[in-house]
């Protein structure tokens, strides 16, 4: 049973399904109730589930995470919304010092089934602090799981799988893809939460991306196809732990790998992925792994974000560079 919907709607129906299924699932965050969230992801949930399960919180991110921790001690499964990427830092201490370590500190006795939803990334012409890509800062924190959806189908299912996980999941939502529609198969889950996926197969080079850049890579591959170049595109889906099986298998075939993300380059996920590919596929590589990323500067004013963010030209240029070796 497939249905066409936007990613916002897909997340909304996913949340709704999870709340229907388990009365311990609660949603909390700034403006998630009456307004339905600034992106309307939680639209209508408060009306249907009540203010006890869909809570407009005071404006305090550290408190949102800190109280969510307390709720898990009573068996609740909080799904918290951080309004924008740049506002997660007041909660950073609670996430990395508390949420991420509780299970470990308790010798496996205390699960932390918290989902931290973060609309992230740029490309929507927003003001400062509304376009950051902080995923690596969570991916390098042991104890957290970090995932990112790239299309409505995955959004719908991954949010439900994240809520079912007994581990804390940082759920990165590509806000520039929120309003794009796609087919959602509401009857099948297809893939587990922590699995990457080949979204386009090809023989000449492998593009590796997640979240907002998956679509950009697919567009790049379509453009390359017109020039007779056959690019494979892999959606990582899970950023921590990484699922590099399909990546390594692909690079062994194509001999060329290009990692694409919006986040700044230094110590970004591309660094880890390039290093792992080099360790595992050294003899198959025909060129060094290329990275196409944001530059190492705070996110710039929006009128130059198109130049800051990886686009088709920069991605195809990297493919050419790799193939020129």
């Amino acid at each position: 049973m497939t249905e066409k919907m936007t990613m916002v709607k897909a997340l909304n129906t996913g949340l709704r399904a999870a709340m229907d299924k388990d009365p311990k699932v609660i949603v909390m965050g700034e403006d998630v109730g009456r307004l339905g969230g600034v992106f309307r992801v939680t639209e209508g949930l408060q009306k249907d589930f009540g203010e006890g399960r869909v809570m407009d919180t005071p404006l305090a991110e550290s408190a949102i995470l800190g109280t969510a921790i307390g709720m898990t001690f009573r068996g609740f499964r909080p799904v918290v919304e951080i309004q924008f990427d740049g506002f997660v830092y007041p909660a950073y201490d609670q996430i990395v010092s508390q949420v991420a370590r509780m299970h470990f500190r308790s010798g496996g006795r205390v699960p932390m089934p918290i989902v931290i939803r973060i609309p992230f990334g740029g490309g929507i012409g927003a003001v400062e602090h509304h376009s950051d890509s902080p995923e690596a800062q969570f991916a390098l924190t042991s104890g957290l799981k970090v995932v990112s959806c790239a299309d409505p189908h995955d959004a719908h299912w991954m949010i439900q799988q994240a809520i079912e996980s007994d581990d804390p999941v940082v759920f990165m939502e590509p806000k520039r893809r929120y309003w794009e529609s796609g087919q959602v198969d509401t009857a099948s889950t297809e893939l587990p939460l922590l699995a990457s996926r080949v979204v386009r197969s090809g023989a000449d080079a492998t593009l590796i991306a997640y979240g907002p850049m998956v679509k950009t890579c697919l567009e790049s591959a379509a453009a390359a196809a017109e020039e007779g170049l056959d690019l494979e595109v892999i959606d990582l889906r899970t950023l921590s732990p990484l699922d590099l099986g399909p990546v390594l298998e692909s690079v062994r075939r194509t001999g060329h790998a290009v990692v694409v993300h919006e986040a700044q380059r230094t110590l970004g996920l591309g660094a880890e992925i390039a290093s792992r590919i080099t360790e595992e596929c050294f003899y198959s590589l025909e060129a060094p792994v290329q990275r196409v990323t944001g530059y190492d500067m705070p996110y710039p004013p929006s009128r130059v974000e198109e130049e800051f963010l990886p686009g088709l030209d920069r991605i195809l240029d990297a493919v050419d560079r790799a193939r020129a070796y």
Partner: protein
Amino acid sequence: MSDPSVHAVADSPLVQLLTPEGVRTTSPEHAYDGSLADIQDLFRDLVMTRRLDTEAFALQRHGELGLWPPALGQEAAQVGSARALRPQDFAFPTYRDHGVVLCRGEDPVHLLSIFRGSSLGGWDPADHNVALPNIIIGAQTLHATGYAMALTIEGLVGTGDPERDAASIAYLGDGATSQGDFNEALDWAAVHQAPVVFFCQNNHYAISVPLERQTRVPIVQRADGFGLPGVRVDGNDVLACHAVTTAALQRARDGQGPTLIEAVTYRMGPHTTSDDPTRYREAAEADGWRAKDPIERVRLYLAAEGVSQDWFDGVQAEADALGVHLREACQNIPEPDLAALFDHVHVDTTPETEQQKAEYVAWRDSLEGSVA
């Protein structure tokens, strides 16, 4: 709120010196002692602030700005407090405090530039002693506290020299009072008796979330628990805002420590141009506040005092000129240059930054070459 566990925030007396009908009143502890000419100056500032705001709103609707957070209805709080500052005082505004930035003498085109997506602020805070507007809720309350602590260390407090003694002021909204940063700022300011004034514009909403969801007590009462005085003022009354802020700043400069001011006002417009307030509040609520308009009451007062229509027309003409200027200036805001931005990542640029800049420039030049 339909949730019975959440109660309306209790009321607490307000300092008011000018009624919505334009009649001067008195308050036991606060008085406005400016002249009629001073009130005319405040009126001009109010009108200019509103013009900047409505012009920017219109520019956003015409696609010239990406976003605008309107200050409509909050002009008296911003102008009254900012005009209480001396040049040597220092203001830390938020993204909505356009009137503060304007009154400090900073070019309002900078504000357009931020919301156009052309800059992240870009001015030197030292030029007019006004920091770049802060978007992260509550963070600037600590900056203002630190600034005030520095003033104390430098001996610029309590010398008795009005040209020397200085204070800082932090602007914040009602939502910001829930943040840890704000509570930490109150604590530090009180512990250090820092010369800082916390000026909270309680406009009753943090985006969609009403005041009742942030606090159970009037914001002014927060001061009690931290050990600093609090004053609650009619935020739509420019004379009262000016009077209470003047007194609080003087206390601070005299070395008597911080004050929390709660200016009770209302956000007449949406949170930003992207927001739809009909989803979370009744139109009737805003109508009640429209009758308390911060500009109209000053107009009524001045007219009753015999200020001529010519003078009002003159202010109107000035506002119109500001509008024309902003429209033109907005279109002439230079496009940012990503290459130049690499130069501002650090003071001492790094080899890595230089290398990425060179890479970007080479890439950009290659595109230009391919087009030609």
